[in-house]
C-alpha cells in the first residue's frame, strides 16, 4: 500500500485534471489515471489527518442495551454457498480453526472453544454502512491484540489481513472463485485498539450465518465493509500489494478507500 502524501507531481496532475474537467464530461475524468492518483492523495490526506486528530486509543462511542437495533441489517455475503463453509455450518463449526500465520513468531490454530475460553470484551456499538445507514448491536469477542500477542508479531509486519470463507458474486462470471474471495486488511494501530475484537457473540447469542458465523471482525472507528465476516485465517504481512487485487481488501480492489474512517 502506497502511503505517499500529496506530492508535487500529484498536484500538477491535479491542475491538469481540473482543467480537463471543464472541457470533458466528469465520467471520463473520473477514470483518467491522473485524477485517480489525485483521489488517492485525498484519501491519504484524510487518513493522515484523522490519525493525527484521533490518536491511537480514542474509543468509539458505546451505547446502552436500550439503543440496540431490533432488526440489525446484514450486508455483503449473508448466506455463503461455498462448499467448505457449508460443511463447517453442518457440524456447527466443530471442525473450524482460526489460523494465525505469516510474519509471526508462533503460528496459531485455535478452535471456537479455545477462543471462548480467553478473556473477552463486550461492547454495544454503532455499525455504519458505507451506504449511509447505521445499526446498533452488542458484540462479544476476543481483543485482536490478545491473539496477536500470543502469536508474537514480527517487527517487519505492517498489516493484519483477514481471509474469509465467502466468495461474492460480483456480476462477472469469474472462473477462479479466489478472485472474488472476501478479504480485508487493517494497520497495526487499529489492530492494537481495545475495541478491535474478533466477535463470536452478537446481542448475547452466538453469531448467526448472516452476521458472519463463527467469527467476524469489529473495527469500531471505520465503516462496515472493513469488518470481515466468516474469518478463516489471519495473516500478518509487510505489504498487501501481492494479495488479490493489491489494494488491501475485496471492496478496495473494486474502488473503495482502504481507510474507511470517513
Amino acid at each position, binding site marked *: 500500500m502506497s502511503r505517499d502524501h500529496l506530492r508535487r507531481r500529484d498536484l500538477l496532475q491535479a491542475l491538469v485534471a481540473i482543467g480537463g474537467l471543464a472541457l470533458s464530461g466528469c465520467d471520463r475524468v473520473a477514470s483518467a489515471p491522473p485524477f485517480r492518483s489525485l483521489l488517492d492523495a485525498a484519501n491519504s490526506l484524510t487518513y493522515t489527518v484523522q490519525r493525527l486528530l484521533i490518536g491511537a486509543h480514542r*474509543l468509539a462511542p458505546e451505547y446502552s442495551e436500550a439503543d440496540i437495533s431490533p432488526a440489525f441489517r446484514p450486508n455483503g455475503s449473508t448466506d455463503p454457498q461455498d462448499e467448505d463453509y457449508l460443511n463447517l455450518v453442518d457440524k456447527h463449526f466443530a471442525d473450524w480453526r482460526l489460523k494465525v500465520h505469516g510474519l509471526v513468531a508462533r503460528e496459531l490454530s485455535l478452535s471456537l472453544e479455545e477462543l471462548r475460553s480467553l478473556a473477552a470484551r463486550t461492547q454495544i456499538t454503532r455499525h455504519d454502512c458505507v451506504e449511509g445507514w447505521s445499526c446498533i448491536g452488542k458484540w462479544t469477542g476476543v481483543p485482536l491484540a490478545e491473539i496477536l500477542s500470543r502469536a508474537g508479531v514480527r517487527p517487519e509486519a505492517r498489516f493484519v489481513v483477514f481471509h474469509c470463507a465467502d466468495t461474492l458474486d460480483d456480476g462477472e462470471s469469474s472462473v477462479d472463485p479466489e478472485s472474488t474471495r472476501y478479504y480485508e486488511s487493517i494497520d497495526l494501530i487499529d489492530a492494537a485498539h481495545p475495541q478491535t475484537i474478533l466477535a463470536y457473540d452478537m446481542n448475547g447469542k452466538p453469531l448467526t450465518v448472516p452476521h458472519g458465523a463463527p467469527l467476524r471482525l469489529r473495527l469500531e472507528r471505520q465503516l462496515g465493509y472493513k469488518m470481515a465476516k466468516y474469518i478463516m485465517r489471519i495473516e500478518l504481512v509487510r505489504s498487501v500489494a501481492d494479495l488479490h487485487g493489491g489494494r488491501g481488501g475485496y471492496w478496495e480492489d473494486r474502488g473503495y478507500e482502504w481507510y474507511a474512517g470517513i
Partner: protein
Amino acid sequence: MAAMPTHDLPTHDFPVAKRWYRRHAAPVRVTHWINVICFTLLLMSGLQIFNAHPALYVGERSDFDHPAMSIQAHLSANGLVGETMILGHSFDTTGVLGVSNEGGQVSRRAFPSWVTVPSFQDLATGRRWHFLFAWLLVLNALGYLVWGIASWHFVRDLLPSREELGHVGKEFLEHLRLRFPRGDAAKRYNVLQQLAYLLVVFVLFPLMILTGLTMSPGIDSAVPQLLTLFGGRQTARLIHFVTASSLVLFVIVHFVMVLISGVWNNLRSMITGWYDLGNPRTTDVA
C-alpha cells in the same frame, strides 16, 4: 470578459469616472469561483452517495420501517413508479425521483443520472469525488475566513448596521418591484444580500461541514460531542441533506437575482472586480 470599457460611454449627467467601481476584492472573486466548482461537484457526488441508500432517519440508528424521508421505486400495473415520501406524505415523482431515464433505459434510481457524479451508479467513485472536493472546499473556506477577518471584509461589507437592518421591509418591497440600488447605493451589499450571505457563510456551510464530519465513525471517536450536538449520526445525515437543499435554494435565488439585476454587470464584477454603478435614481440621492 471585457475590462473597463474606454470608449463610447453614453453621456450622462453622472460623471463617467464615478460610474466604475471596484466592487469585489480579488480574494472574494477567487474563492467565489473555487466555491462554485466545489459546491457543484460536492452536490452531484453527494446525490450519488445518497442514491446508495435513499432514505433519511432521525436518531443514532436507522429505523428502516420508519424513515423521515425516502425515495423508492416499485412496480405497478402501469410499470415502474417513483415514489417520494416526506414525513409520511407520499408523492408520485416518476421520471425524476425514484424512476428515471438512464442512457435511454427506464431505471430505478433515487436522483436521476443528470444530477449525479458519476452519472451511473458508482458509490465508490462518488465518495472519492466527494471527499476530494470537501478538502478543497474546506481549504478554500479557511482562506476566505482568514482574509475576511483580517481585511475587515465581514465587518465592513457583510455586517448590516442597525440603520440598514431597519430597512429590511422596504428593501424587500423594492426587490419585489425589481428595483435594485444604483449609484452610490450599489457600492454596498443591500441588507437582504448581507443577511443571505451571512446565513450561507456562517450557518449553512459550517453546518454542512460539521454534519459531514459527524457521519465519520473516525471523527465520532475523537469528537463524540458532535453526536450530542446533532442528535445522532442519522439525524446528522438528515441535516446534511436538508442544509444542502437549502443551499440549492439559495443558489437558485442567487441565480435569478444575478439574471434580473444586470447579468453582465454582475458577472463582470465577480470576474474582473469592476461594476458599473449606472445613474443614481433621483430617489437614491438624498
